[in-house]
């Protein structure tokens, strides 16, 4: 399929359309407001469901197949924050704290972007490795830790509580649900999984659609901060994912992932965290400006990946893997 056709399929999925509806709702100042509790519930559900499915798949995966993709993911978790930090500090002339904060966000991963990529590949009929959620868990933490380390070494870290941030990170709900869900899936196996499939599998895409409606409203509120963020941030939030995505696809291919698997590793690399990273950064780098990192991650990169990134990284993957 040509990239334009892929983009059309992607843009016309209920998921992306719901995101667009959320944006519209905010722009026309609608009184639509999803309860905070619904948002929290859906994010817990999505993380647990992603983990569960991954755990069940992992139970049937041999270490021989898994180690190379896992290593590739870890490498991404080290390299991306370094690139992101350098770009923000050298080219963008941002402060140490702001640069490290961006590095943490772009090095880590967005579980919802991951979920959207699964759904996208399902729709166009491309298979991928079942253990991909395990890579989400592997990629989530290290980049944040490395970014905080950079900040500390560069002397930009004052007033923040570094150790508290790492502790918070490891026990954060996103890690706990993802890893916990995987453990449940792995221990309960396919038989246990089948019992809860009506909730955790069948409803997944619908729940994701609902969630993206809310996320569209959140992202649109970020748009207001775009002018203040400036041109550098806009460029950063679009070019950085393309670089990281290419890197991810390529490393995935080297590590032996399939076309679908390489696409998803590209998506993971390209995506910017907006659950784990903001919380950790707020604690460890309180002087970093949330107006920068949240606007970039949630206001620009997330919509970009959702609308354009998914078909783009897939097309890249067909080139790099030679179409299979």
């Amino acid at each position, binding site marked *: 399929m040509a990239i334009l056709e892929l983009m059309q399929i992607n843009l016309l999925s209920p998921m992306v359309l719901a995101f667009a509806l959320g944006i519209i709702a905010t722009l026309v100042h609608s009184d639509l407001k999803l309860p905070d509790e619904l948002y929290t519930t859906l994010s817990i559900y999505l993380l647990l469901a992603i983990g569960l499915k991954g755990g069940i798949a992992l139970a049937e995966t041999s270490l021989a197949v898994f180690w190379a993709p896992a290593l590739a993911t870890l490498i991404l978790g080290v390299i991306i924050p370094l690139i992101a930090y350098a770009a923000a500090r050298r080219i963008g002339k941002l402060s140490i704290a702001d640069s490290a904060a961006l590095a943490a966000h772009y090095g880590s991963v967005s579980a919802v972007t991951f979920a959207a990529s699964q759904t996208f590949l399902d729709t166009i009929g491309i298979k991928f490795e079942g253990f991909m959620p395990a890579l989400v868990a592997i990629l989530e933490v290290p980049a944040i830790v490395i970014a905080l380390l950079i900040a500390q070494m560069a002397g930009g870290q004052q007033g923040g509580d570094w150790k508290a941030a790492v502790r918070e990170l490891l026990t954060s709900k996103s890690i706990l649900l993802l890893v916990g869900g995987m453990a449940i899936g792995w221990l309960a196996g396919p038989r246990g999984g089948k019992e809860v499939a009506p909730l955790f599998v069948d409803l997944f895409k619908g729940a994701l659609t609902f969630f993206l409606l809310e996320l569209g409203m959140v992202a649109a509120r970020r748009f207001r*901060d775009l002018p203040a963020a400036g041109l550098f941030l806009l460029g950063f939030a679009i070019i950085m994912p393309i670089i990281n995505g290419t890197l991810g696809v390529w490393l995935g291919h080297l590590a032996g992932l399939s076309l679908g698997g390489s696409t998803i590793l590209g998506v993971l690399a390209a995506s910017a965290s907006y659950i784990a990273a*903001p*919380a950790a950064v*707020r604690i460890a780098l*309180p002087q970093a400006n*949330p*107006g920068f990192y*949240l606007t970039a991650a*949630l206001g620009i990169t997330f919509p970009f990946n959702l609308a354009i990134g998914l078909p783009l990284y897939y097309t890249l993957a067909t080139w790099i893997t030679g179409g299979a």
Partner: protein
Amino acid sequence: MELTTVKLVTIISEAILEERILHDLRQLGARGYTVGAVRGEGTRGVHASEWEGKSLRIETLVAPDVAESILQHLAATYFPHFAVIAYMTDVQVVRGEKFRGQQ
């Protein structure tokens, strides 16, 4: 009925600081607290935790000296980088010893 005057300290804070602030309150001599969920806007613009949920409204009834040390501590520790405000007022309670204690 014997009424005593104690101080009610109210703190509006990003949700992310909850554990930290409650810990500080206990350290400084508060013997109880009440927390509600709120949202708001001030001069500092966006909160990091904004989209992650609500802010908190923490209330604690304490002796006047404790109240002052809480305000001082918050101003020094959180006001610079976090979206936190605090204020205090006089309130009257029955059986003030519950809130004054022996700090």
